[in-house]
């Protein structure tokens, strides 16, 4: 499924969607950045409540297909423009990490 498909199916908010046709092949949920870098795989959707600028670098380096901020968390100032500049898909959801992960699991 593409990131755009995920956004439309799950009614996600698109903060930045510069690569909407990227494929989502799996998922990872976590807020500790080194855990994400150690465990997330390329083309995962990364579910987190961490919203500072460092998530953009982590997403870029791990090759995840998108970041999804859960629980209605809003990105910090500057993060949206940084994501757009670095070609990182940044989405949002009102759902909990658990609820959203369960839904994505059914879709993949």
């Amino acid at each position: 499924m593409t990131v755009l498909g995920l956004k439309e199916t799950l009614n996600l908010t698109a903060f930045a969607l510069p690569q909407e046709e990227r494929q989502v092949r799996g998922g990872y949920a976590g807020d500790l950045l080194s855990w994400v870098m150690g465990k997330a795989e390329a083309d995962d959707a990364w579910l987190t409540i961490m919203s500072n600028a460092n998530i953009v670098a982590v997403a870029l380096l791990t090759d995840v297909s998108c970041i999804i901020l859960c629980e209605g968390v809003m990105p910090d100032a500057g993060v949206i423009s940084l994501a757009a500049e670095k070609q990182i898909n940044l989405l949002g959801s009102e759902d909990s990490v658990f609820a959203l992960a369960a839904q994505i699991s059914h879709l993949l």
Partner: protein
Amino acid sequence: MAEALRFHYDVDGDNFTSAGAASVEVKRKLRQLGFDAETIRRVSIAMYEGEINMVVHARGGSADVYVDKDCITIILADSGPGIPDIDLAMQEGYSTAPDNIRALGFGAGMGLPNMKRYTDEMKIETVLKKGTTVTMKVYINAGKLS
């Protein structure tokens, strides 16, 4: 490539938001040079973890990356406090990062373990109150993570 390409970066110790800029730039260059995605991922994550360590613990430092056709070498050097017990620092979950760093999602005690995990060789040279140099090597087409 007849000779290794060398890239040098100064890692700013005061700016946590820009931490990782050197790793992102190395990733871009390795892509241009045509390395495979998994090699690039391993090099850039290992280097990012090292950059973060220098920012958190040593107020910055320098990063040198040597790119050869069969090996990529990353040398991170700082003039920080040094590591008193390397075995302890290598343990997953052990961290001396302060609370403000943890609030950003760092300081989980996974940085050095990740650096070892994603590289084929890692050497730490450290002198208390003088500084630390970490040398990491990633061999091309010989990765331990497939």
